[in-house]
């Protein structure tokens, strides 16, 4: 998959999981891995970027005697999901057009 497209999809996946409720790094990897391959080293920069873009907020809370970071989606994050879904509809239209064109040529 194209790196740029994959990045956009992963952004949407992280935000979509967070839309269900607050989460933390390890759980995010586990949840997202059920439908797309993701590793910690992929997730970390995404979380950093989404945080810098105010699409999610971070809080630290004590858990089992250590600090754990919890991530929550913001309104800007929710708006981003809508935006990505809108873009996806356009992509599907273009995809369909390309597939049809090819089908006609091959027919």
């Amino acid at each position: 998959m194209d790196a740029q497209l994959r990045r956009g999809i992963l952004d949407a996946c992280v935000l979509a999981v967070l839309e269900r409720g607050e989460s933390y790094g390890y759980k995010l990897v586990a949840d997202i891995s059920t439908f797309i391959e993701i590793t910690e080293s992929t997730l970390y920069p995404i979380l950093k970027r989404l945080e810098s873009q105010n699409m999610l907020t971070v809080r630290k809370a004590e858990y089992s005697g250590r600090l754990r970071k919890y991530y929550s989606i913001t309104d800007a994050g929710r708006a981003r999901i809508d935006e990505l879904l809108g873009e996806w509809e356009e992509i599907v239209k273009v995809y369909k057009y390309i597939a049809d064109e090819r089908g006609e040529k091959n027919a």
Partner: protein
Amino acid sequence: MLKQEFLTQLRSGLEAASIEDIDECIEFYDEMISDRIESGMNEESAVAQMESIDSIINNYKAEKPVAKLIMDKVQKSHEEAKGKGKGTLWIVLAIIGFPIWLPILIVVFTLLLTLYIVLWCIVVAVFCVLVLIGAVALSGLFVFIMMFTGLVPWPLGIFSLGAGLFLGGLAVLLWHPIWSLCKSIAGMIPAIFRKIKKGIA
């Protein structure tokens, strides 16, 4: 490999790659390994599930625009050069600029040396004036004593006594203010040079 060893190696790798927010990144991987251990894995297996340090760094770099990576690298080099005080750029500039800065350095050094000598000359000159007044006063008294041998006429001897007493009194009167003036000028010299040094730095 255990968690601490992995995190130490990761820190070294991130530092070598000039990546910022290293502490935050270490915290993230620390949390990831700790969460795995908590879910039932042993420490070695949890660390083994982590990606290689190169892969972590490459993914981090891939997220950043190239311009930002270059800026970070330049900034780090600049900070290192500043810390060591001998960056390659400065060494090159010092060699290239040698014909310009050497004459300027010589001129500045000569001017400062001249200023130093002049200031000390003022101190010595003021002190010499006082010594001269004292010496003239003593010579007046000597001329008065010579009057008794008949070698000096008595009006000149009396005049010399008067002049000698006057100048001796003047020397005594001026001793304290002139001594203080000399001391204060001498004390000012290091202060002036400290200010000049501070101005240059």
